[in-house]
């Protein structure tokens, strides 16, 4: 990837509206992610968090608005080309390849680099998630939920992304595993400066991890601020506890 102006945001979403048929899922959404930041997007079920994530990836393409990544508007570009520009996604529900081995799953993550520095990157991700090292020859479907989540993140990292999109990494996992995964994300951000956009329902954990956060309610951003600020606001606590009505 080319070195770009580090002063501007790495990702800038502005005025984005996305609809599935006649159902509008996102309305005039704007957010920015600066290089080296962890930004979280929190909200209740059906608020549009995953839709925003998928819109950034080009599937579906937005009805209106711009998505500027690294200085270029990627709105409407085909998904596979967007994913080749240094954006990687760990999708909601993990979506690892169940019948392929852990190693093959990781190999698929490295496919956009055509396998360059595969061994080296394999070392790095297995150092980050040592559990995966023990399971390299096992099929993805035989892993536990937490291991599958680690694999999904590791697979995303294999493409050497500059921006990592994490969609609900805590989904269905035990609190201890969630802590493990979140601490791995924090380490990754501190040591490599990886930029992370994290979509979470687990607002408490996410806001504590993130530098900044956005709250998404019914397809619109209602609040933003630093992680600590948002965590302190009563509306956020209400929204998070009462399920989306701030």
């Amino acid at each position, binding site marked *: 990837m080319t070195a770009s102006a580090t002063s501007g945001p790495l990702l800038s979403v502005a005025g984005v509206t996305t609809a599935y048929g006649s159902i509008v899922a996102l309305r005039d959404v704007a957010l920015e992610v600066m290089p080296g930041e962890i930004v979280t997007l929190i909200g209740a079920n059906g608020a549009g968090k995953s839709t925003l994530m998928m819109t950034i*990836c080009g*599937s579906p393409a937005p009805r209106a608005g711009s998505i500027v990544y690294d200085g270029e508007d990627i709105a409407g570009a*085909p*998904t*596979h080309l967007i*994913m*080749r520009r240094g954006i*990687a*996604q760990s*999708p909601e*529900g*993990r*979506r*690892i*390849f*169940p*019948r*392929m*081995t852990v*190693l*093959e799953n990781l*190999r*698929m*993550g490295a*496919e*956009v680099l*055509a*396998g360059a520095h595969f061994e080296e990157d394999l070392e790095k991700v297995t150092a980050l998630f040592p559990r995966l090292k*023990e399971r*390299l*020859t*096992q*099929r993805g*479907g*035989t*892993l*536990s*939920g937490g291991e*599958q989540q680690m694999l999904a993140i590791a*697979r995303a990292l294999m*493409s050497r992304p500059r921006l990592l999109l994490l969609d609900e990494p805590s989904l269905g996992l035990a609190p201890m595993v969630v802590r493990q995964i979140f601490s791995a994300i924090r380490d990754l951000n501190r040591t490599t400066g990886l930029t992370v956009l994290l979509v979470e329902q687990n607002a408490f954990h996410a806001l504590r991890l993130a530098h900044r956060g956005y709250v998404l309610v019914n397809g619109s951003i209602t609040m933003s601020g630093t992680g600590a600020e948002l965590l302190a606001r009563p509306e956020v606590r209400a929204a998070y506890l009462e399920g989306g009505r701030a």
Partner: protein
Amino acid sequence: MTEAIRKPPANPYVALLKDAGLAALVALGVGAPLLGMQTVPGGRGLALIPRPGLLLATVAAVFVGRFLLGLLFANRRSAARREAEAPPRIGPSPMARIGKLVAPGLLAFSVLMPVIPGIGRYEIDLGTLVLTYVMLGWGLNIVVGLAGLLDLGYVAFYAVGAYGYAIMAKFFDLSFWAALPLTGLFAATWGIILGFPVLRLRGDYLAIVTLAFGEIIRVVLLNWTTLTGGPNGMSGVPRPTFFGLPFSMAGGEGTFAGFFGLEPSALHRVTFLYYLILALALLTNFVTIRLRRHPVGRAWEALREDEIASRALGLSVVAVKLTAFATGAMFGGFAGAFFATRQGFISPESFTFIESALILAIVVLGGMGSQLGVAIAATLMIGGFEVFRGLEEFRMLVFGLAMVAIMVWRPRGLVSGREPSVSLGKRGTIGSEHVAEGKG
């Protein structure tokens, strides 16, 4: 291990009796059409004579035999139970281990088959037929087994290949060898033509469209009489030559027999055709195995596993699907050209839906994605059709039962193991076959 397995087994004799009863039931099901009825030529066609005595004797023998066998192996069974409580087995599954021995054995047999004493024209012809289906199975395996795209119209590419060669030979006077690569290319083009409209379809919807595609091709062949001869088909499709040397019963200068100074024999061409389809099938297998280790093959498998994840990893789903359709179609086209040159006559009747269903059954019974499984399934099905020819219409009944049995006992096919395409030189610590496929 769950508690249920640790529980001491119930009375072993009851279990043995149950087991023997089950075996007897299977024997009854299979034996009823096979042994229970005899056909004798009567005054007006065949007459059926029931043989309940023989059937009952067989069922009783199976019951007693199974029970005794169970008693005999009771000790070994308990050893197996102890093993089951031990940590999961290390290394590849027994099926994969057997496969390592079976595959070279089958290959050696296929290569030597025509020169084995006692093998005549009938056996070689049957071998050729089996290998044709092995090749078709391997071709469809790319689309269905690897890429996970359910294709019910695979016979269309077989037809495109066959008619492609026949038309090229008739109108452009191309020889088999010149036409062969073109038929592959032609069929691959049709694979892409089918691929485009179905890019967004999956599962049942895809199956229906491919089914319709197969029918469209057949109906076009049936009605485009000026080009294809319609229902009369195309006859006089040129026979293959041994790299330019024709096979001729007359012998003489410039023929295969004459060139090598052999006695002209009809067996030469039959044997040549056998080795030709063997080479084509092995080419299909070789390309598939190589592609599986290639990014393209991995992308097919990733697509089968999860389309959305594949896209999120930067794969172009369009390209991946189209290459799968085109590659599968190409081998179907090769097989079609072979079929045309072997038969010398083709008509739309050879390319009905039942052919697609048969090829798909071979792939599914063999274990989707398994090359060895497909070869075994093709041999069993096509060979079985021949062996049981004497059973007339009961043949289908036997095959129906066999298919149900396989799907009950080996729901993922005869050979369901999947070898990883990437490894770090060491084999798996836990055989993944132990654990049911799931999203855990």
